[in-house]
């Protein structure tokens, strides 16, 4: 629980903010070995430990751990749940001052608000300067926001498969998801806590988003036009195709671990993200006071946050005179590549953290 109310970009402040976080590895006596890992839209603090609801291993288990690229034998890794989420940090499902869930009374937050909460957490833990801040996708946005707004707080910034601004296409996909949730009668204006949740709407939101996390080639390789548990088309609307069955499974699985209102709030925060707009319209200005080394990584099959967005970011960092490395890695998995088996990413991450 933060001692002070958290000021918000939208005006006002949020009192009684709780931040749930996990740590891995031992904190050095001089507190110089801290790596902050920021999670993505539907991620959580369980970066390298089992998820309490699904029991699945940590979402970046392959990257974080003893002897792994983010080596917890050397680094003290902190992974906080973002505010607005639903895994322990304050969000729309948390109780407000009146004891009832905030629901849609929860203020609209931004990526910078999430990072302001992270900084408040670091303050509470007595950590002045991070060895590195690392994130993929929305986690990368947080890493960039930290570098732009609290430039003295991190020595290294590793931004993977991310962007400095949400594009019209990014916003459009998110809006489809939000409308699916709000069209579910169970959503009930957001006041579904204690009753039936808008699982159908949330599942559709997840299905649409999931497509954007994969590549066309990846889908074709994995499913093609293969049929699901049948030899012929049913001439009905069952999940005839394997890809349909897969998406339905992804959607329904997601509803077991995620809150629909959190999905609305966090996608909104991502849509509002535009680092240049925060800094007078010029992205280079956002990094004018940067003291960190930067490493930007994109994937050639990622069409959600394509390499062109990373290049735009690298251009701005160069213009600001910041030390920056950039690499576009080849991987077949689309945007999700940052979470999957891409050995070249492991080498870059380990090398950059030093």
């Amino acid at each position, binding site marked *: 629980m933060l001692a002070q109310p958290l000021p918000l970009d939208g005006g006002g402040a949020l009192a009684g903010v709780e931040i749930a976080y996990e740590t891995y590895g031992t904190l050095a006596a001089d507190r110089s070995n801290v790596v902050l890992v920021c999670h993505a839209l539907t991620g959580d603090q369980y970066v390298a430990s089992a998820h309490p609801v699904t029991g699945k291993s940590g979402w970046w288990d392959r990257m974080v751990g003893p002897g792994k690229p983010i080596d917890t034998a050397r680094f003290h890794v902190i992974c906080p749940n973002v505010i607005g989420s639903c895994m322990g940090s304050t969000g729309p499902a948390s109780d407000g001052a009146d004891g009832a869930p905030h629901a849609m009374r929860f203020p609209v937050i931004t990526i910078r608000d999430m990072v302001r909460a992270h900084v408040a957490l670091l303050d509470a833990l007595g950590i002045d300067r991070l060895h590195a801040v690392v994130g993929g996708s929305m986690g990368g946005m947080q890493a960039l926001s930290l570098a732009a707004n609290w430039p003295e707080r991190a020595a290294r910034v590793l931004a993977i498969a991310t962007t400095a601004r949400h594009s019209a296409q990014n916003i459009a996909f998110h809006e489809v998801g939000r409308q699916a949730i709000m069209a579910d009668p169970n959503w009930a204006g957001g006041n579904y806590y204690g009753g039936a949740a808008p699982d159908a709407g949330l599942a559709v939101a997840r299905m649409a988003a999931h497509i954007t996390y994969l590549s066309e080639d990846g889908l074709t390789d994995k499913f093609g036009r293969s049929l699901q548990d049948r030899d012929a088309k049913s001439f009905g609307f069952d999940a005839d195709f394997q890809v349909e069955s897969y998406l339905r499974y992804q959607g329904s699985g997601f509803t077991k671990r995620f809150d629909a209102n959190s999905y609305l709030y966090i996608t909104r925060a991502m849509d509002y993200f535009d680092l240049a707009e925060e800094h007078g319209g010029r992205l280079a200005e956002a990094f004018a006071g940067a003291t960190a080394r930067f*490493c930007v990584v994109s994937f050639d099959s990622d069409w959600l946050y394509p390499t062109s967005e990373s290049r735009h970011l690298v251009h701005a960092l160069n213009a600001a*005179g910041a030390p920056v490395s950039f*690499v576009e890695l080849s991987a077949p998995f689309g945007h999700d590549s940052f979470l999957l088996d891409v050995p*070249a990413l492991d080498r870059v991450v380990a090398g950059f953290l*030093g």
Partner: protein
Amino acid sequence: MSLRPDLAVIARQIAPDTRVLDVGCGDGALLTTLRDTKGVDARGMEIDAALVAECVARGLSVVQGDAERDLADYPDAGFDYAVLGQTLQTAMRPDLLLDELLRVGRTAFVSFPNFAHWRTRAALMFGGRMPVTRALPVSWFETGNIHHVTIADFEALADTMSITIRRRWFFADAKGLGGLHSVLGANWRAEFALFELSRGP
């Protein structure tokens, strides 16, 4: 770490505590040397992702990119030196690349294999085939060297483009050729050449 002869000369010539951009920096050998021995703010550009990853692992700041497209992203005179080692002959438009080098760097170092070396001339004259030599070991159909250039050609281009040649170094048998002051002689004897360039006098 032992540097390629042209890079070793460049490393000696570059002043301490300056800003250097190595275009086509490979595994970052020159940049590492400059950073570690001269306190240089060393940056690189490299087209090969695996080599960029090696550079990042060395703690270098290297951007994956194609010099002929992505140098345009760099501001004017952002660097004291721009280095182009053994890459000029692979460019689509070497002249435009030289322009860009001298825009982003106040001084440029450019090295390339000399196509007029006697071994190359002999191979072409007596063999009648595109030369495959120690300095140019790849067959014509798979070489990345799409614009073969001689020392005399380069000097003529520099003159046309009003580029000042401040110094020149010539190499054969992986060693410097001392006492070679005539370009004509160098054009026969040098396997590689290195030039220090600037705009204006």
